[in-house]
């Protein structure tokens, strides 16, 4: 395995981590807002608060880790993506900042402001939408070189059906992942009402998720044939992912094996996400940037890999402790014990 592939694989893995735990967070915010709107928040608030409170900051770190890592391993991305993403990334930062800090303000400061809940819920959908634009741009066709500087064509971007199908996928995925996870969490907490409601949400959002994936495949076959063909080459990974998706929905439909459903959900997204990444290889930005011509020097690459391994030795036990205390602690999940400062 070359250092280039090792680097991008590690970063991709962390982005997958952000995709999963970020989705849970964003979707939870949306369901909470929806609950407030329909007068059902008492069913959900407890479950959502207990899960989110201790981990919200950790979610953010996954994203930071990804973009710092990308610039570290592939410094040229700073030039291409840094210049073109000014507007979408700034909007995403602002939404993330307001959402993140007001989450803390609300949960530790003062509770129960309705307008805030809506804003929080809406931001949770807008963030994945604005971040997903990066994936669209990476497919090429929206960036051109003017005087040796990359320029983003906003008109082409926002009138492309590919953009919008990826946005729909991002939102549907967020809500689906979140609903499946919270169904499992609520079931573990023994909260029947919440389980019932969240199970319904999971089933509802499975549909749009499947449809948007088919839509993207169709659009991509026209937009970036090279990428599409490579996706067909590793079609078995997508196929396996689809099977996992069907089984997850089946378990949830049957109200059984929620733990398996959660495991399969993660498997489904991991497979699809890596299949997408592998078929994107070697391009970081079609057709300007590949992982090879943007890669950092060997000395830095080695240093980063060593730092990464040492960092993981520190992080893995810490994350294990966090999960043991909050995610797998029955008393905590069920709300029997609250030890907040």
């Amino acid at each position: 395995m070359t250092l280039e592939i090792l680097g991008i694989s590690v970063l991709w893995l962390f982005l997958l981590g952000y995709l999963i735990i970020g989705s849970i967070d964003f979707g939870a915010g949306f369901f909470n807002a929806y609950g407030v709107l329909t007068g059902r928040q008492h069913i959900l608030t407890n479950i959502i608060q207990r899960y989110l409170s201790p981990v919200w900051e950790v979610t953010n770190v996954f994203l930071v880790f990804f973009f710092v890592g990308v610039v570290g391993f592939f410094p040229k991305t700073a030039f291409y993506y840094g210049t073109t993403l000014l507007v979408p990334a700034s909007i995403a930062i602002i939404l993330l900042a307001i959402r993140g800090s007001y989450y803390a303000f609300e949960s530790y400061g003062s509770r129960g402001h309705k307008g805030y809940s809506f804003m929080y819920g809406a931001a949770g959908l807008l963030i994945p939408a604005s971040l997903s634009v990066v994936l669209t741009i990476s497919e090429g066709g929206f960036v051109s070189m003017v005087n040796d500087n990359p320029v983003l064509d906003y008109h082409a971007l926002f009138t492309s059906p590919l953009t919008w199908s990826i946005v729909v996928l991002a939102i549907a995925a967020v809500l689906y992942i979140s609903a499946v996870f919270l169904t499992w969490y609520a079931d573990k907490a023994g909260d029947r009402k919440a389980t019932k409601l969240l199970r319904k949400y999971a089933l509802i959002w499975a549909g749009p998720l499947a449809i948007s994936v088919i839509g993207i495949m169709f659009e991509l076959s026209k937009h970036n044939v090279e990428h599409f063909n490579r996706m067909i080459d590793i079609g078995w990974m997508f196929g396996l992912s689809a099977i996992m998706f069907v089984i997850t929905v089946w378990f949830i439909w049957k109200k059984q094996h929620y733990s398996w459903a959660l495991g399969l959900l993660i498997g489904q997204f991991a497979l699809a996400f890596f299949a997408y990444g592998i078929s994107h290889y070697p391009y970081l930005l079609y057709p300007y940037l590949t992982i090879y011509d943007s890669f950092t020097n060997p000395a830095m690459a080695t240093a980063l890999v060593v730092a990464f391994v040492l960092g993981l030795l520190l992080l893995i036990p810490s994350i294990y402790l966090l999960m043991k205390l909050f995610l797998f602690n029955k008393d905590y999940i069920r709300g029997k014990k609250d030890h907040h400062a």
Partner: protein
Amino acid sequence: MENESAVFFSRVLTELTLSFHIIYATIGVGVPLMIMIAQWVGIKKNDEHYILLARRWARGFVITVAVGVVTGTAIGLQLSLLWPNFMQLAGNVIALPLFMETFAFFFEAIFLGIYLYTWDRFENQKKHLLLLIPVAIGASMSAVFITIVNAFMNAPQGFDVVDGQLVNIQPILAMLNPAMPTKVAHVVVTAYMTAAFVLAAIAAFKMLKGSTHVYHKKALFLLMKVGLVFAVASAIIGDFSAKYLVEYQPEKLAAAEWHFETEKNAPLVLFGVTDGEEVKYAIKVPYALSFLAHSNPTAEVIGLNEFPEDETPPLYIHYLFDTMVMIGMFMVLVSAAYVLGKIRGWSFVSTKWFRWVIVAGGPLSIIAIEAGWWLAEVGRQPWILRKYMKVAEAATTSDHVDIMLILFCGLYIVLGVGSVVVLRRMFRHNPIEQEIEDRKAEKGGDFS
């Protein structure tokens, strides 16, 4: 191709983001240590007041840390969004500490989550305190790694440029650049000092507002002792920083000191105004600059005349330097007077006016931090990477930076106002007297 307005707005936006972020970042680095000290003292002395102090600070800390995290994310991304050419170049040499910083941040975030949600969960309080150690280490290490990147911008090394290509790159050597030791130490120690004086200001303010509870007195005395230690340390390290400048960035020191001509027996200029190269209304301390720079009152100090005019920083950094140093000295005096006064029983340290001085020390310390950072950044101009890349060459060419500046202004207003409102509400609704009563009722224990 440079885009002049993009360069200008990128500078303004970066300055705005850093100036806002540094307030929360400084508190974020310093306060965990204060919490740790208070909780430790509480456990040692078996005094519930100190434990409560730690607990209430921890609660407020969550709010500031939240703003620190999200604005830190903003500056992290803005480095690539606004300075893509710089990051492309520097990423090759200095990406390592940036990458390590995310680990430090990760580590801190995980344990902060655990620490906050495990109060009273352990029989043995010391176990809970143990969980705070990674938070404090993570917070301080974040500052260390980020400051290393900044130090590299001032004193780049660990690479060679051959035919416009970077070769012979040594990431560790780049981190261990000459600016690193003094800069890192100064940033970390002043963060501790500022956190102590900000919290002391709150305690003094509560006492001025008529709260006579012994809790505040204990808090104030503890914080002033801690603040004194770090204020003295900051001054000593500040002196080393000046000596670093003499050796490696003489133009920065010369501009900050309005030292125009290379000369021996150089005086130290304080305040004043310049008219060309003429300094008016200034206090000149004879031989002091030579002494400061070389520990020798007659030594020669390099002046601005040795540098091309387009490679020297603007002269207004002189005022930033004066502001930082004056406030630093003032805080040493105030905390020393208070601590000595308490021990020796001087009555003036308990008077109203002196408490107002302590209250002023909080915002003053923050101003000193801001002045220090502006001095560090403006003093490096016109370089973004000294002697290798100018700020103007590093900026984005995008046409939308002005609109982003407006959006981020809005964001910082929302975050700034929000955090202040929430913090005030949090402590006003639950004053210390109330909380002590509540806990007494809960435990029926022995409280004084």
